[in-house]
């Protein structure tokens, strides 16, 4: 990925706002468009928008170098953002300032990471050489599986984490990531969207059941899918029953055999190239 190359003033000026929306889990809409503007045009655009939709708080930033305008709408869902974009389009077209496509997106509808969403939107605008002047809805590329497959292992016991990481990285093509509690496990999961999760049930901060459930919820939202193997100290029937109800693929108890674990992993995901 060419993440490092994209550096736009829009990203910088919206950074704090997006961080705020993300942290307080409030919705916000983002519109990005290729346009040819200057200071006076921007203030005219602002005036126009304020007249049409006075109730909406909007931030505008124009990246003169790349010729991209970004708008950040407070508290707007995707439907409204799209509606709002029509006004922007109307204005830009009327004055013949629109030079390319427009992309609209909304946090958290389109992405669970507001900043990444903006980043990918700008990237798409730059990469998109076609000059069809349509409004597109942002499709989250991070929801597609990344090229390098990964495994996430969550366990309180660092020795087990070390052992499994070494063993699996040696015997499979996967990169192995580890976390020691449910909460950091979830954070890692959001970032990685791994192919396989191996988890203990006895976790702290977020317990194993909540961890599995939230993964399943996330999968549903993003239409992704991760196989889950439970590797646990818990030997009780109720736990086995409950975890399978939650949709895990395998249940293994400690002490465990690496050979067996590897065999079960093989059954679930493609292990080699």
């Amino acid at each position, binding site marked *: 990925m060419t993440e490092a190359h994209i550096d736009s003033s829009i990203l910088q000026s919206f950074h704090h706002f997006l961080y705020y929306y993300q942290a307080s889990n409030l919705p916000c809409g983002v519109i990005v468009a290729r346009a040819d503007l200057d200071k006076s045009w921007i203030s005219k655009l602002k005036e126009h928008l304020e007249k049409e939709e006075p109730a909406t708080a909007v931030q505008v930033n124009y990246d003169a170098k790349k010729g991209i305008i970004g708008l950040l709408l407070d508290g707007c869902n995707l439907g409204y953002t799209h509606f709002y974009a029509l006004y922007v389009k109307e204005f830009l077209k009327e004055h013949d300032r629109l030079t390319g496509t427009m992309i609209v997106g909304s946090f958290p509808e389109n992405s669970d990471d507001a900043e990444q969403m903006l980043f990918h939107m700008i990237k798409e605008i730059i990469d998109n050489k076609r000059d069809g002047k349509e409004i597109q809805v942002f499709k989250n590329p991070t929801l597609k599986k990344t090229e390098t497959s990964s495994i996430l292992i969550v366990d*309180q*016991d660092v020795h087990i984490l070390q052992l499994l990481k070494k063993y699996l990285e040696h015997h499979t093509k996967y990169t192995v990531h580890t976390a020691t*509690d*449910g*909460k950091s496990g979830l954070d890692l999961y959001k970032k990685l969207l791994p192919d396989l999760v191996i988890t203990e*049930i*006895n*976790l*702290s*901060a*977020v*317990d194993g059941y909540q961890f599995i*459930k939230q993964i399943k919820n996330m999968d549903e939202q993003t239409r992704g899918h991760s196989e889950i193997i439970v590797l*646990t*100290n*818990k*030997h*009780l*029937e*109720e*736990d086995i029953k*409950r975890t399978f109800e939650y949709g895990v693929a395998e249940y293994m*108890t*400690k*002490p465990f055999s690496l050979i067996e674990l590897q065999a079960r992993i093989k059954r679930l995901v493609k292990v080699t190239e």
Partner: protein
Amino acid sequence: MRELLLAYGIFAMYYVMTINTIYLGIITFSFKKIVEIIKETFYSRYEPLSGSKYVPPISVLVPAFNEELTIKENVRSLLALHYPTHEVIVVNDGSEDDTLKVLIDEFRLNYYKPTFMKDTIATAEVKGVYYNPEYPNLYLVDKENGGKADSLNAGINLSHYSLISSIDADSLLENDALIRIARKYMERPDEYVAIGGNVRIANGCEIANGMVKKVQLPKKLLPMMQTVEYIKAFLGGRIGWSEINGLIIVSGAFGVFKKEYVIKVGGYRGGYPGEDMNIIIKLHRYMLDNDLSYKIDFCPDAVCWTQAPDTFKILGSQRKRWGRGNLKNMIEEGMYMFMRPKYKIMGWLTIPYNIIFETLSPYFRITGFLSLIGYSLLDMTGWKIIAVFMLINVLYGTLLGLGSLLLEEMAFQRYPRIRDYFKMVLYTILMFFGYRQLGIVWRFLGHIDFMRKNNTWGTMTRTSWNEGVEKDQAA
């Protein structure tokens, strides 16, 4: 007159020395037992045990009164305890704040009419039970205000398992606290009726996600005093008392009980503080009356972290409450067991020690101190004797405090820095210059409250567990 004052003063000095000597005996037992405890915990594997089907299930009872700030994290961390089968029963004791709502929102609980609840023990009216199948081991009982004991009784009425654990809503249990007590219980399941956990002071520690991340000593004076005080009471005292089966209290903050016997002794007694000591005395009495073989134990490696009061006002109200509860327990239960051979160690040692050297201590100490002052005013030449006595008492007390710190260092080493150790030693000595005396005055004031039939619980303000974390983020 002068001789009389001196004689009484010296008598009071001997009284203090006797306390210390008995304490020395107890701490000797503690040292004897700590070796055992170190071995036990060293050779036990708690993680595998925490998923074993042979471990008995436990109902965790959490009485909550105005705990909206901390309750969410605490319930989360209780649900995440590493234990094979446990249920968490939060009892909202008619809170005036949003405790109930916070929990209902957080866990999306649904209301159920409490018709199915047994009324094994009479309690204030239960308004409803809240439950969500997504959290199959969490229950929330909403009831009219009736005090902590009443809430525990309501929890017992709903509980499904034969072991119950009482936990303060403002305390944080370590992940393995419950399984450590259960391991102890499984050694002799037919004999154990109650096992207490170790209470440590969380002030100053780094806390995140309902867990103590980094153990540090408190920065403020009063919590620091209480830290060494708790170490002395729990490690120096309770380990020793439990060794001779003369433990008189299992801390209300964290303990595990056999439900059957708690019900047999009529549940927790309401209306007065000190219900934690009361239930233990009643259990002793019941078991000895019925000639049943039993044991009440203390499990120092099962740790519960609690917020200590950090102002004089709140600490004072807590200590007055303790004094009041202690007096009530001694009048209500203790008197019947005092020096009765039937009650063995309890009758011969624990109860007499508590009555003579704990409950009555403010009177001996305060009058003794006053008579020494009176004597010094009349005759300045006798100060040397007094000074020597006082010095001996301070040294004796310090020695015992150091012994307790040694126990801590031998078995647990929770405070890893060398600096911390010296700080604790320093405060062990400082305790004798003001703090102890204040404690005695508070206990006396508690007795006065008792006489005036003042029966309020007093205040305890809580701060959110997240406070430390938020500060970190701001920095």
